[in-house]
């Protein structure tokens, strides 16, 4: 079964790809935090944020189609959370719109915009980060930024064995389909429950076997590795440049407010 991997394009050759993982992590996370803290009505700020993101995207030479397809992952969440708000949020006096007999409040639309734009900025940032950094370097970057190793170890093992489990699930499905005569078994929740239980048991037992293999090769509790990348001046300058630019936009909003008031 063909699997699509988190770091599919991490072996491309671009400026962003060659930046140290730590610099990229700090840069993109700062970008997201600053964007999220921006009030929703500062449309110009968001336009600049998107501009910067687009600049980073172009620099990373990632295929735009791939990035766009990946970004669609945010759609179900937006649908679940925000899409109904404009229709139900009580009119707080700022006016509203009436299209074809359906009422939409302005403040509701603003909330909707807030959710959509911030989640989209977050998703695009994370896609660029994860597609331009190999998973191994990304985890190492987090570790060197003092994230507790247990988190990165869990993430690494999950990434490694997720597709093993997916293949097992596929084989179970094929076995089930071979014994099924009446059509759509997918509606039989008992079957799905059994499959999930079985996959859990197999994963648990595999975990035991992996632990035995690790212990046989001298594992004593600490995951060791070599640190071969240094933070170069280029990494620091670029990352701080981007962060500074966004910080200025963010603060300019505050300054504008102060000037107005």
């Amino acid at each position: 079964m063909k699997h699509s991997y988190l770091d599919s394009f991490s072996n491309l050759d671009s400026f962003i790809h060659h930046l140290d993982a730590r610099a990229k992590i700090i840069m993109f996370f700062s970008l997201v935090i600053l964007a999220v803290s921006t009030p929703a009505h500062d449309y110009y700020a968001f336009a600049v944020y998107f501009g910067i993101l687009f600049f980073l995207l172009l620099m990373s030479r990632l295929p735009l189609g791939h990035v766009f397809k990946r970004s669609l992952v945010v759609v179900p969440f937006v649908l679940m959370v925000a899409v109904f708000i404009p229709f139900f949020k009580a009119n707080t006096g700022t006016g509203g719109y009436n299209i074809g007999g359906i009422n939409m409040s302005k403040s509701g639309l603003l909330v909707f915009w807030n959710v959509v734009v911030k989640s989209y900025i977050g998703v695009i940032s994370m896609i660029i980060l994860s597609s331009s950094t190999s998973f191994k370097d990304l985890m190492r970057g987090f570790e060197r930024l003092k994230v507790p190793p247990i988190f990165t170890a869990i993430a690494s093992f999950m990434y490694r064995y997720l597709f093993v489990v997916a293949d097992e699930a596929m084989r179970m499905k094929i076995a089930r389909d071979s014994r099924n005569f009446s059509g759509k078994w997918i509606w039989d929740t008992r079957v799905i429950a059994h499959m999930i239980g079985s996959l859990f048991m197999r994963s648990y037992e595999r975990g035991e076997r992996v632990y035995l293999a690790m212990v046989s090769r001298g594992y004593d509790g600490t995951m060791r590795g070599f640190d071969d990348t240094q933070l170069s001046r280029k990494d620091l300058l670029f990352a701080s440049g981007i962060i500074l630019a966004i910080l200025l936009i963010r603060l300019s909003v505050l300054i504008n407010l102060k000037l107005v008031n």
Partner: protein
Amino acid sequence: MAEESQSEGGLVPAFRRQKRETKMHHHKAIEIKNLYFSYPDGTRALNKINLSIENGESVALLGPNGAGKSTLLLHLNAILQGQGEIRIFNLPIVSENIREIRRRVGVVFQDPDDQLFCPTVFDDVAFGPINMGLSREEVNKRVKKALGEVGMKGFEEKAAYHLSFGQKKRVATATVLSMEPDILVLDEPSSNLDPKGRRELLSILVSIPVTKIVVTHDLLFAMELCDRAIIMDDGKIVADGSIDDILADEDVLDAHGLEAPAGIEEIKQRAKERSKVHRLRSTEA
């Protein structure tokens, strides 16, 4: 470079009897005295095991499922600890020695996906040496050497999910070889391998001059790799002798749920003829 070694009437495939340089050890490689082991739920897995294996031997561990073979393997590198005495190169299994024992006894498990848990092949093969505390240059050297020994040079940056099953098996073996063990323990090495993969793995294992213990159901594989065979059944050792003798003894095989592989007579005959031809050639030369 193959030495000829004569055994009375038995087959002697020339390549199997090649004796290479092995480290000089004065002690037996493995010495087990009166080993008992029961699992936490009460099942008695090992029942008075007495065994000794010399350095350089190649031993096949045969027997029906549930005989306790895998349980015995896990005792060899101190993962399980039962009652009785086990000595690896005269080192008793106590906590001070466990680190050294795990370096000396390399266990290759049956499912390579259980042993390839790192992002890349390089990381997996380097895992053992790094845990041993070796320097970066030494780790790189060991990884290169181990991957070369299994014929997987150039695969350092690949991830495990990109490999075929046979390639995974070879890399899993390399992850253990990079620790330069003195004893190599293999649990069903040829299972699920296609004939080509099986042949490749066999030639790799034959060329590594360490003490070997191979748990297998593939009796032809055992015959080509090992000199000695031990049959276990129900937690006990029920037969111990040269592999030719054991595989020729149909009664003992039958009594413990084993069967001589079909065609074994023809294979023995062909091997006899091969070694005859070899002898003729070397007298002419």
